[in-house]
């Protein structure tokens, strides 16, 4: 008898699989259901020169502030309740990161193209806008059919690694979202050629998944996942409905840390240069 694969890992095991220079997709949306415990582990690591592909929030901001980002592939960077991502702004305005902008739907098509293993998907999105000027990867394509129209060819956003955070999962890599929106977490996982990691609030027996929510919520399956991390409160300080809402007070503190290098150093010393268990203890004590 061969036993089924057990994919349970810790955050540091995930980081050990990643390499500097990789293109890493991060699931969630803005400041919602971000795999923050894995992001924090990356912040503590020696990894550098990352290309970050994200519907971006504090994941991108923190990685920028810690000097981990070579290139941002994104459609927006927002903390939702705070409209603009402050650390991303600092990095952009200093001109220290490469910028690869997308429309948020064009970005979806790029992930979809990678997931379907085709080089591009055609769309009207981007025509006439400055995306074609500022994103040097974007090209157009002429329809081979009678209409002969010109479209934007959304390039496949192939990922070397993908990290997402879900509400529940099992040890084999099946995942479940219980909140209002899956966002594009499934596409991030499918767009990655390997290193597909999912953290979850709680690992449960497979039998219990449909007790947690209807079968419609089982949108991540084990063919899409190489490793599972149990990370209670792992999306903190982003929201992870219905398990918890965004920690707005903490997010405000995070945003203030973009005010100066000194403010960031203080935030970093207090919240980044500690391990995940210590971080979660401190959050509980707040």
């Amino acid at each position, binding site marked *: 008898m061969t036993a089924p694969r057990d994919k349970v890992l810790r955050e540091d095991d995930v980081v050990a699989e990643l390499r500097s220079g990789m293109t890493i997709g991060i699931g969630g949306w803005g400041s919602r259901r971000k795999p923050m415990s894995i992001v924090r582990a990356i912040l503590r690591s020696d990894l550098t020169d990352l290309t970050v592909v994200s519907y971006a929030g504090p994941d991108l901001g923190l990685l920028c502030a810690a000097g981990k980002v070579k290139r941002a592939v994104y459609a927006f960077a927002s903390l939702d309740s705070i409209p603009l991502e402050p650390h*991303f702004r600092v990095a952009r305005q200093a001109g220290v990161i490469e910028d690869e902008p997308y*429309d948020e739907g064009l970005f979806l098509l790029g992930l979809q193209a990678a997931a379907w293993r085709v080089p591009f998907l055609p769309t009207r999105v*981007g025509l006439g806008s400055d995306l074609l000027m500022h994103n040097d990867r974007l090209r157009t394509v002429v329809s081979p059919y009678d209409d002969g129209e010109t479209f934007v060819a959304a390039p496949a956003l192939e990922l070397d690694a993908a990290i997402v955070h879900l509400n529940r999962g099992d040890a084999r890599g099946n995942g479940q979202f219980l909140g209002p929106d899956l966002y594009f977490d499934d596409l991030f996982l499918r767009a990655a050629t390997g290193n597909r990691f999912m953290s979850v609030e709680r690992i449960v027996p497979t039998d219990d998944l449909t007790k947690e929510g209807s079968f419609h919520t089982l949108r991540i399956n084990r063919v899409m996942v190489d490793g599972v991390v149990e990370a209670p409160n792992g999306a903190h300080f982003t929201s992870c409905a219905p398990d918890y809402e965004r920690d707005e007070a903490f997010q405000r503190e995070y945003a203030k840390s973009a005010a100066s290098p000194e403010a960031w150093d203080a935030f970093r010393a207090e919240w980044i240069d500690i391990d995940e268990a210590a971080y979660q203890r401190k959050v509980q004590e707040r």
Partner: protein
Amino acid sequence: MRTADICVLAVADCFRGDGELLANPIGTIPMIGGRLARATFEPDLMMTDGEAMLVADDRAFFGADDPRTIEAYNPYRAMFDVVWSGRRHVMMGASQIDPYGNQNFAAIGADYAKPKVQLLGFRGAPGNTINDTTSYWIPNHSTNVFVEHVDVVCGIGYDRAAALGPRAARFHELRRVVTNLCVLDFESDDRRMRLRSLHPGVTVDEVVAATGFALVVPDDVPETPVPTDEELQLIDEVIDPDGLRYTEVKS
């Protein structure tokens, strides 16, 4: 009656004639105005709760546990299906907008690689404007926002659409720009922005002074309609009982 109430009605009027499609006004006063349109003259509009649900309620804003009538589930992925199939009229904001309605909320400054001010990003503006009717809401009409040339074209204007040709741009329509001073549209010969109506008490000179390019100004500019007592009561008691509209436009 305050300016915010007049803006609410002006926003509502943008959706007149839209029938059964997804009205997607983004922002506080836009959300209230969209609800007013549905509650009064466009009953078939569909509208979001600001996240993943389409709701039938007249109330504009909900707390996490407030009951609501969900008509449909519309997560982000479904929203792109709506947008790309042409069943939406969106109202967006703009950090800059030019005479032809080119819009920017990505970055300010001449050097895109090192912008003076990094803003949101392109968000959904390119896809929205090439696929669906778009209107804009500008709560702070000023020469910082209304500029001769935007630094980055996110949402495309009529000159960019014309350059694409009639086929590629056949779904492009910019309907209105509503501000705290006036209502603007593009119903001029060359599709440059035109002054459509002035909010009560605002003069043409004030609008011209707050606009960084030459507007098309007709000889007679009507006054923006103001809400009736019934409409005001509906806004006050049902749609926006907490008065959030006054936090966006204070006068």
